[in-house]
């Protein structure tokens, strides 16, 4: 191997090592802190949410909404619109969830009725007991 070629090879190896050794910590440095927070459950009294109304709660740092649907009971949905992350609001008159940012409409099951969201609103597990509701 010629001297120049050898030096070019060395330069490439050291250059890539230096770049890699810098980029890996940089990505780790900028990445969100690891480890998932412990999932907590929330208990609400049934009387807090009469039929046809909804209650907004933070559930493990995610904005959520519990709706008491007429004839269908309780449902817990994420309020984070699957389009661009705005928070949906419950519209009692239309019986829909509306996103204020791009006008998306969801039904009370979380399914997209109209607008640009690519998928339904995530549902949270819910357990209805005699006097209370357990969410999460």
């Amino acid at each position: 191997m010629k001297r120049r070629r050898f030096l070019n090879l060395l330069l490439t190896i050291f250059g890539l090592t230096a770049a890699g050794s810098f980029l890996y910590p940089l990505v780790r440095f900028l990445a969100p802190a690891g480890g998932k927070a412990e999932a907590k459950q929330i208990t609400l009294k049934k009387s807090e949410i009469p039929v046809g109304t909804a209650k907004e709660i933070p559930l493990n740092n995610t904005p959520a909404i519990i709706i008491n649907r007429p004839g269908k009971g309780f449902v817990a949905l994420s309020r984070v619109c699957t389009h661009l992350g705005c928070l949906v609001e419950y519209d009692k008159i239309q019986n829909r969830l509306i996103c204020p940012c791009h006008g998306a409409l969801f039904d009370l099951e979380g399914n997209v009725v109209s607008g640009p969201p690519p998928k339904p609103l995530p549902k949270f597990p819910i357990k209805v007991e005699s006097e209370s509701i357990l969410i999460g």
Partner: protein
Amino acid sequence: MWRKIKNWLEIRIGLGDLIRTHLTEYRVPKNINILYTLGFVALVIFSIQVITGFFLLVYYIPYSEMAFKSVQDIMSTVPYGWLFRQMHVVGSSLMVVVVLLHAIAVFFMGGYKKPRELTWIVGTLMLLITITFCLSGYLLPWSQLSYWATTIATTLPTAFPYAGETVAKLMKGSEQVSGITLNRFFALHVMLLPLIISVLVGLHIFLVRRVGISSPPFGKPAEPERPWTEYRHVSHPEGYSFFPDFVLKEIIMVMVFCAVLFFFITFLPTLLLPEEASIPADPFKTPAHIKPEWYFLAPYQMLKIIPNKFLGISLQMIILLIFILWPFLDTEEENNILKRPRLRWLFFLSLILWMGFTIWGKYS
């Protein structure tokens, strides 16, 4: 005293030669028009943004618990704090206007054509950095408006499968926009972006000087005949001197800019600071009918009407890429848009569409 300083500099850096070659004997085309001053105006606005930004930094606290209050204090307690913040806020919008107008003028006059493709690309990158400046600065007051505008912007990458979620989380530093996001955007706004734009400004000016200033394609041609097969500097020996003739035009345009800036600050102070800008960020309440800044209204409306998120954002990326790489897509030699009806049609249609989407976005 002045003569002594001049002599001192003359011996060390050849001041006289520098002034002659770069100012008094540097010629600009005779048919140059007022639109050629927009680059200089953009540079002046950038300088104003740096100065007012520095003043705001003296009182601003980049911590989510304190950011909103510190901005409110700047507006109400700090003497003339409102003036520097308004200058910074209005200046940022005007900078987008001027850089956009500069790009439109260069496009209209065919200034992107060979050998100035690189100058165009660097210019369009500066436009993108300017918008990134606006976006990153928008979050810093930590108001409802800034919080939700940033939520939307940082969720955009999720339209792309695989890497989208990771990119969004890297931007936010957490699952939702939080204090960590504020710190990231603050670092970006006051450190990284100024560094990048300074390099790009230097490169842009270097390219303009190295290749030579382009002349408008209307009227008598001032440039050598094509084709360009080797490097040559375009000079305009018959033209006006850069200093004082052209610099005077530039100063007039800077004065026009100052008039517009202070008109907005004095008579329309709430135009860019609506009600939501005075409400502290609430991560559990998206304000009703929230709208982005005027320069994002067209993309906002497009995203609203295109039913598929991936399609909507991809389409905008493609339009942006076409805009940046336009010099390589337009292969015709004629640079006078008046002699090219199809290009003229495309130019005005794009402008009308953009304005139409902006107005639609505003009132939808």
